């Protein structure tokens, strides 16, 4: 007979006879706290001593839950593998109840969901792409129809929501757009001044910053910030509404979900993103001015005059027009991704990511189109 061993709230004692019979006397609780230690200890005992038969005496077991039942099942399996006998002794009624009621059935082997093979994924991607293109076309049609209806029935536009989205997309974004643009102007002026100083052309820092920001960087930077803030928010808002059946509820109440959800967002964006771009231009010029005045010994007056001399009304309106187009793209793709949400929370996350990535791609793509078109129009 061996001495008691303590394992959390359970103790056990082992007795072995000469004919290879091993009896383990268990005492106390067998639960989640000690199940794995017991399985490990008894497993190594069986491996080391290879008993012909194993008897578990449960007389002094006060509590045994399914973790306890697991210990018994594992021991039974170990003994079966070792071609030995396994028996229980003095199991109290409530202990037997747990063991009887929780015996394992012939359940399938657990599998981990793995990604399908390359070919399946390739095929799946093509099918998904086709389905996306189909939906994209129908969504363009649906948005056009909704805008046409709103044009002829202006009262159908949800003005409250439109103002709310104007605030969320425009006013709330102003601090971050202003700060980033100011820093952009600052960095551009600083970097270009290093080169221009060598030629005594400090004053052209003003031209460089103002032209680059109003024509290209102002609209692009603003659009990227709006895509990150509002495009993603449109996708997740509509996506969450989709999985909680709110979009279905709108539909069954006789509302056109596109007119109800998409039109205010696009309208608000088209109105406020160009204004944001205007602010972005102003803040970037201020950033450049700061470098010009404090590092390049230019006067504020000279810097502003050079900026006004460089910029034409065409440059300014081109930037504003581009930002209007970017606003349509961002809000449209955000809403489109939201409507494509299916299933659960993970799908909302995917839609949000996809909305931002697609928006940025479309912004750059359309900017390239503008650049090429203008090159040939001139």
């Amino acid at each position: 007979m061996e001495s008691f061993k303590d394992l959390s709230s359970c103790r056990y004692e082992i007795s072995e006879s000469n004919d290879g019979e091993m009896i383990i006397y268990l005492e106390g609780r067998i639960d989640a706290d000690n199940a794995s230690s017991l399985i490990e200890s008894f497993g190594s005992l069986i491996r080391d001593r290879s008993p012909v038969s194993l008897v578990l005496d449960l007389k002094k077991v006060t509590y045994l839950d399914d973790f306890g039942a697991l210990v018994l099942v594992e021991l039974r399996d170990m003994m079966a593998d070792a071609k030995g006998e396994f028996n229980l002794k003095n199991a109290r009624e409530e202990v037997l109840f747990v063991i009887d009621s929780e015996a394992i059935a012939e359940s399938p082997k657990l599998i981990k969901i793995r990604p399908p093979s390359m070919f399946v994924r390739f095929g799946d991607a093509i099918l998904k792409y086709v389905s996306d293109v189909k939906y994209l076309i129908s969504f363009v049609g649906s948005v056009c129809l909704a805008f046409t209806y709103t044009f002829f029935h202006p009262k159908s536009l949800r003005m409250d929501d439109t103002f709310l989205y104007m605030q969320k997309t425009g006013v709330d974004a102003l601090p971050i757009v202003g700060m980033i643009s100011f820093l952009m102007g600052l960095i551009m002026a600083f970097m270009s001044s290093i080169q221009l100083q060598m030629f005594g052309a400090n004053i052209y820092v003003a031209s460089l910053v103002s032209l680059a920001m109003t024509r290209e960087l102002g609209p692009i930077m603003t659009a990227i910030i709006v895509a990150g803030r509002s495009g993603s928010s449109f996708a997740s808002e509509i996506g969450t509404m989709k999985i909680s059946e709110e979009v279905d509820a709108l539909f069954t109440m006789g509302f056109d979900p596109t007119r109800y959800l998409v039109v205010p967002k696009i309208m608000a964006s088209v109105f406020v993103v160009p204004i944001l771009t205007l602010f972005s231009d102003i803040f970037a010029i201020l950033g450049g001015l700061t470098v010009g005045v404090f590092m390049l010994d230019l006067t504020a007056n000279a810097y502003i005059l050079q900026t006004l001399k460089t910029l034409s009304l065409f440059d300014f309106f081109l930037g504003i027009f581009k930002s209007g187009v970017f606003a349509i793209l961002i809000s449209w793709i955000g809403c489109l991704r939201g409507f494509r949400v299916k299933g659960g929370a993970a799908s909302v996350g995917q839609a949000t990511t996809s909305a931002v990535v697609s928006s940025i791609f479309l912004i750059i793509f359309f900017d390239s189109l503008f650049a090429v078109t203008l090159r040939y129009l001139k």
Partner: protein
Amino acid sequence: MEKNNIIEVRDLVVGYGADTVLENISFDVEEGEIFIVLGGSGCGKSTLLKHLIGLIKPISGRIRIDGDDISDCDEATFKKILRKIGVLYQSAALFGSMTIAENVSLPIKEYTDLSHKSLETLVKMKLKMVNLNGYENHLPSEISGGMRKRAGLARAMALNPKILFFDEPSAGLDPVSSVELDNLIIHLNKSLGTTMVIVTHELQSIFNVAHRVIMLDNKTKGIIAEGNPKYLKDHSDDPFVRNFFNRKSEH
């Protein structure tokens, strides 16, 4: 044999901001009891449950879970309390990207050192216990509402907590599934001795499973009845309580 109070609530005031939902309520839940919190819609049942499981701090008062004060404790004690409780949420709150077996095995993997093989066996046993054997590899979206509730129950009791909280377990279930869930609650209470605290207003379930109930009321913001539901149905002094248990309108 005298039983311990596993939950003690004293002078509890709960609410949101300045608006109180319940004022100065006190009650105890005995170890191994099936205790039901009931009342009409908007009486603060779910709010009380959120306080009992530590999701919201009370405005004032004390909640002791197995001797530890959940309303005012350090992080280590809070974690200790969380190991003692399991919650079945109204929507089951299963993780949609994981299979049923993965959902159940998540807390077991985190808190025990069981080998992969033992874990697999245990998860099968847990799912067998809630009659979901064979559905181990299904996603939550691939099974019915009643099955999701049972899978949620298997996950809530993955580590065999001392106390199980249920938020409207019968909500959205057909009568047969509802009775099956009631029977499962009774079975688990008997076999494992788990204390069950159930928030519901489903009368049939209340009569089926409850050992004791408390009834909350939004007018008095307190407990208006406490005891065995079958007794309260006929013998309560308050006509509102009798009407509630007999499904009678006040008007």
